[in-house]
């Protein structure tokens, strides 16, 4: 559409798409700038600068051998994997029931499971933290995972609900009419149909947990800090290229995961566009 207009109307129309192009390029640079800067800063020999002055891979290697950061990344990964799995499993029956439930019940369910989206996560973290401190006097990784399940659950509930809305109930009815048990119907009919929503929900939950800062800062036990908290504490007190190198590895990891998602299910899961 854009191309045809510009072509047919000649030179007069050129400034318009170019203007959009320039604006979009600026916006794009703004979005990716921090990632590029972090990578550049990691290649500095001495202090941190961008662009780097003397190039070295020394810090990139050092970051991989520094145990505390590797541990932090592992903890983040385990917490995110557990939280995303649990919240997706919890979201499944909720989203499926939402479709069949009477409006009043559906409203209560929506409010209950979307509620965490309305409350700022720092405030929920404060609430969970004060209850847990009162009840147990300590926090541990288990409590951190509970917090992450709560804040990540709205995403799979929403993505699965979005898919079930387009689900033809006749398909499930057909399965049960030929004698399939509810469980069998679910596994061989419903689940394959809602798979895109389930995968998208899991991924959103995983990324939300992996990125979370405010829940973790309250509920992290001293000795088991996830990566973001480690980097945060480091940044508060010192600036060394190693922290840029650690961050760069994290960016590379994210990029690889996004690439895999693109190959497996396509990036449409993020833009909400049905292919």
């Amino acid at each position, binding site marked *: 559409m854009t191309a045809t207009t510009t072509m047919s109307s000649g030179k007069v129309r050129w400034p318009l798409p170019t203007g959009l192009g320039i604006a979009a390029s600026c916006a794009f640079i703004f979005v990716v700038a921090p990632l590029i*800067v972090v990578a550049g800063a990691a290649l500095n020999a001495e202090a941190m600068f961008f662009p780097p002055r003397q190039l070295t891979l020394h810090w990139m290697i050092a970051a991989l051998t520094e145990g505390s950061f590797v541990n932090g990344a592992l903890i983040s990964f385990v917490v995110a994997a557990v939280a995303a799995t649990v919240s997706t499993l919890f979201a499944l029956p909720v989203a499926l029931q939402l479709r069949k439930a009477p409006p009043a019940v559906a409203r209560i369910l929506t409010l209950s499971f979307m509620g965490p989206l309305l409350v700022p996560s720092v405030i929920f973290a404060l609430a969970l933290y*004060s209850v847990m401190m009162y009840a147990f006097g300590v926090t541990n990784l288990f409590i951190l995972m509970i917090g992450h399940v709560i804040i990540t659950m709205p995403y799979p509930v929403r993505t699965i609900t979005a898919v079930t809305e387009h689900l033809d109930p006749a398909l499930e009815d057909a399965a049960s009419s030929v004698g399939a048990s509810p469980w069998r119907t679910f596994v061989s009919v419903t689940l394959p149909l809602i798979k895109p929503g389930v995968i998208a929900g899991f991924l959103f939950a995983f990324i939300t947990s992996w990125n979370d800062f405010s829940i973790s800062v309250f509920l992290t036990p001293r000795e088991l800090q996830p990566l973001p908290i480690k980097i945060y504490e480091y940044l508060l007190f010192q600036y060394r290229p190693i922290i840029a190198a650690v961050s760069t590895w994290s960016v590379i990891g994210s990029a690889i995961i996004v690439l895999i998602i693109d190959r497996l299910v396509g990036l449409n899961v993020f*833009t909400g566009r049905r292919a």
Partner: protein
Amino acid sequence: MSLTLSSPQTDDRGGLRERCAAWATRAPLFVPFLFVVLFFFVPMAWLVATSMSTHEVGSPPVFTGTLEHYARFWTDPFYLETALWTTVKLSVVSTALALIIGYVLAYYIAELPPDRRGFLTSMVVVSLSVNIVIRIFGLNVLLMSGGLVDSALTFLGMPRVRIMYTELGVLIGLVQIAVPYVVLPLIGVIAAIDPALKEAAASVGANKYRTFWAVTFPLSLPGVVAGTLIAFTLNAAAFAIPALMGGGRVRMMGMMAYEQATVQGNFPFAAAVGISLTILSIVITAIYLFAINRTFRTARKAA
């Protein structure tokens, strides 16, 4: 009903079996429901109770139903100006800026042929999936005095502007974090708009701007609402960004609640700040949705 009258016995058994089946399908629902009640609603209720408790240094809060902490927050000009006003101003402005920047990028990506959207979209997704602390760190290196932006401004002969540890720095941070959340839902919504509608507008003589404001933008409103709501909720509760980019000078309510709880140990006041922030954020969201709904409806009526 008629079945009940004709053969009550068989129906009773059938009803029982049906009820059992209904319970069996609903049972998986109880676990998540219990979980949410236990770990979300109970803590939130607890927080409300804490905010109405008396605080004494060195002892746990005692519930007395007092509203002194709310009164302290909502009447002290210091808190109103430094925390409340800063939070509202920064979160609203940053959401608006993120919408403008995000819309331009999303529009550009959506107008590309589908096979060429991949790279830009995936970079936005990568940016979204990189931890907020790392992105702020990148911005820090870029914006610090002697950094690239600073040097560029000096080179261009512009006056030196302090960005880091000012409100401007926090604002840039908030916008940077929010943009991907706005871009992604918009790409799908804009790309889904039927090109025939735009062609129709053009065929009756509308120029590009008119076509955009009369066709594309109204049709992309669901995406705008989805993106800005996430951006606003995140930014209103921002905590890492003011902490790392504000250098303790820019105080937002989320950060203040954290400090009051962990540094000062004043849980009741922290809770009161937190509940106030929650209510504030919900109220602003409600007003926003109401306004959008109204404009949208009047626009539709006028059309």
